[in-house]
């Protein structure tokens, strides 16, 4: 369905993403997790063909057999919104403030010639109701400022699924929302995924959120894949030191007197990355080989791009070094 092969993104001499490979089957969700600057958002924008002009993407992005990177702008416009749709992080700013949400939802349907203006307006009301907004006929005439954050994100989802796309990309769709609202939005996304059978690319910095939705998870760091595999395997037995650090850094709910467990050091600047593994500087197992040589994928329960991911590699203590 979606197949990304050797995707790299450069910004001048800086490599923001290097040689990413993954695939998503229909009805399946891939979660991409990573810190800011890991390359997860630009991966999404590259698929949509909406990278800022200064960035260059190379490799292949195949959606239903078509290489999106080879398409021209008008062909891309026909795919966007119809075959692939995207939900953004900030429901506050991602909706046009001077247009009623019903009109914003109907717009894509009319644009792609799926429905007449009148039918699209009806369908927009149905969608507003489908995503759980009360009194859909009235809500469709509401402006974004008249809705709460969660309601706006629901409207955003209605807009994204309007044309029944084959792929839905959700870039941190719940990060700007209250925790209780987060759960509702995740549940809604799950429902519409099952209803439409679409594939989903779910991007988050929060491993806990991803684990609720994604069958497979890809861990990104410094523009490179760290580990990929089935979500439960990856969570249960992480093989990459970075993944282990991420899991250890999740505060556990019941231990309020234990220290928080951050990964030591800071995300390195992309411009200063060495040729080897981007994580080696913060990695407890990092050595000279990690600095110089790109690790090849080590395939077992999960795939880990790490020289030390061998099944019997010692699990060194992670986190605070004190």
């Amino acid at each position, binding site marked *: 369905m979606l197949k990304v092969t050797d995707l790299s993104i450069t910004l001048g001499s800086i490599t923001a993403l290097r040689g990413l490979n993954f695939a998503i089957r229909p009805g399946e969700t891939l979660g991409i997790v990573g810190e800011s600057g890991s390359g997860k958002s630009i991966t999404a924008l590259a698929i949509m063909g909406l990278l800022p002009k200064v960035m260059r993407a190379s490799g292949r992005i195949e959606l239903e057999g078509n290489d999106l990177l080879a398409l021209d*702008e008008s062909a891309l*416009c026909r795919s966007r919104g119809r075959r692939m*749709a995207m939900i953004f992080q*900030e429901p506050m700013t991602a909706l*046009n*403030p*001077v247009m009623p949400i019903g009109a914003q939802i109907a*717009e*894509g349907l009319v644009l792609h010639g799926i429905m007449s203006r009148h039918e699209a307006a009806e369908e927009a009301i149905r969608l507003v109701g489908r995503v759980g907004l009360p009194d859909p006929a009235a809500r469709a005439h509401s402006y974004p*400022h008249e809705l709460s954050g969660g309601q706006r994100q629901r409207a955003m989802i209605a807009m994204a699924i309007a044309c029944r796309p084959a792929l839905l990309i959700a870039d941190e769709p719940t990060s700007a929302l209250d925790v209780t609202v987060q759960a509702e939005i995740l549940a809604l996304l799950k429902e519409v995924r099952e209803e439409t059978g679409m594939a989903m690319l779910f991007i988050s910095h929060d491993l806990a959120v991803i684990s609720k939705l994604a069958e497979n998870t890809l861990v990104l760091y410094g523009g490179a894949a760290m580990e990929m595999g089935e979500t439960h395997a990856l969570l249960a037995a992480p093989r990459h030191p970075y993944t282990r650090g991420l899991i250890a850094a999740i505060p556990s709910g019941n231990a309020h007197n234990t220290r928080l467990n951050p990964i030591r050091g800071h995300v390195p600047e992309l411009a200063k990355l060495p040729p080897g593994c981007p994580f080696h500087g913060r990695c407890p197992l990092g050595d000279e080989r990690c600095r110089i040589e790109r690790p090849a994928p080590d395939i077992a329960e999960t795939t880990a791009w790490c020289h030390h991911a061998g099944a019997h590699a010692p699990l060194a203590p992670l986190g605070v070094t004190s």
Partner: protein
Amino acid sequence: MVRFLIKRLAAMGLTLFFAALVVFGVLEVLPGDPAATMLGLSATPDTIAALRLELGLDAPPLARFWGWVVGFFSGNLGISYTYRVAVGGLIAERMAVTLPLALMALALAASLGIALGALAAAKANTRIDALVMGLAQLGLAIPNFWFGILFVLLFSITLGWFPSGGFPGWREGLFPAIQALVLPAFALALPQSAVLARITRSSMLETLSEDYIRTARAKGLTRGQTLRRHALRNALVPVLTMLGLQFSYLVAGTIIVENVFALPGLGRLLVQAIGGHDLILIKSLVLFFVAAAVITNALVDIAYGFADPRLRVART
């Protein structure tokens, strides 16, 4: 929305009332006898006394102010001293030239300015952008009367396309009348459209970096469609503010441009009234210009509510 409208209109009425008070005060209550001012230095005491009687200057100021304000609504503003006709009729007659001129200039300035500004923003940092902004800089620097003189030289004297001045009156048919207004309208509009183009460009560029523009693109709209359907309306709110302010400048501009083109409009009337010390006429004309500006600003405020739904709530 209704409450907002009522509030806005009440504020407008209050502004006009105070403006009338100031105009009246400056011209009549301040030291100096209006009758003597109107008649000049060579007047005899007899003629001054006769004029005082004609102007009703014996009545207390408050009563005269009230009479004037009431007259403004009933159209009875007295007889012009220099023209010897009713001021109300005179203003109405001259307005038939100035209002179409100002509206034409406003429409020209808005369409030209917004179109060019949007174009410059769409082609930001290209040669087209540089060209448009260069022209705008030029338009800002050249005053409207100079444009008027240049237009007369080029389009009237050299090419003979438009009359160099004067106004045939609306009774002679629509075409000759509009033809007479084209050059002055352009002269008035060009500097204003330059301002509008610059504001539209910067507002548009700011809007184009908003998240909802990316959302629109993700829906499958092309760059052009996004610009027209999503960016333009959002970008127009600050432009609208400027447009309202500019109408006042346009009306003030007619005073100069009507004189360059010898158009029998309100602006030219005001200059002539000042020249003839016709205080009766000046008083009402000035208030009329003030009213035009105040009413326009109120209309712009109301238009905001339509352009940006968020303001309908915030402003009530």
